[in-house]
């Protein structure tokens, strides 16, 4: 049970070289939560040589 949350309930940010897999949520009840779910990648460098891999799967 998530209640009175004036932010983000699930906040995922994937930076360089991060790997996230096999994450499961079930039976979440949110009551008065302003930002339920946010999933995003951090900004990556413009030069391809400086970019590092990151991935998320099976969420």
């Amino acid at each position, binding site marked *: 049970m998530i*209640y009175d949350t004036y932010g983000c309930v699930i*906040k*995922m940010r994937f930076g360089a070289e991060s*790997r*996230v897999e096999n*994450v499961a949520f079930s039976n979440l009840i949110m009551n008065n939560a302003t930002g339920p779910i946010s999933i995003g990648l951090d900004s990556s460098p413009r030069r391809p040589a400086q970019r590092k891999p990151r991935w998320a799967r099976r969420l």
Partner: protein
Amino acid sequence: MVVPAGDFIVGTVELKSNVTLHVSSSGRLLGSGKPEPYTAGKGVPPGNGNVVLLYAVDADNVTIEGRGIIDGQGDKFYTGKGDNTGPGGNRAEGYVARPHQAIFYRCRNLLVRDVFFTRSAYHCMRILECRYVHLDGVRIHNRVNLNNDGFHINSSQYVSIANCHVTCQDDACALFGSNKFVTVTNCTFSTRWSIFRFGAGRRRTSRYPTA
């Protein structure tokens, strides 16, 4: 180790292997409201601060239990300044020299149950590179200072959080670094920031082989 009925003011306390800290139902362990009785936990890495009230390092079979209260009196450390670890923050000027309520670093078979943690000066419970962690029936009310996290778990494995009730100011259940096999069941959370926060911190190679 038993905290009997009454109030007891302490500074930094280290829990060694095979120690059970029992806080009895009318007992209250109060963290000092002054900085002098606190030290950095021996062996605890300094990132995000390592000044602490209760801690264990490289310890097996540590237990904290009982229906009593562990009160950090963190409101007395309020300066209006946070740790500046958010996006764009200047970490060098962050306020990290205030005590976390509990840090467990590289521990195995850690059990925390039934205890009420409140008023930490910083994070409530930091679990760093631990394995086989069981948090059951824990209640946290942590809203007196900036960066008042609930559970903050870094690069740990086999962590179960069950039947807990967390109200805090910052991340309620942060999962940083490389965690594996974490379950959270039958809990309630309320915060002013994030409940489940993933992805911050650095990825590191686990010190444990993959099962």
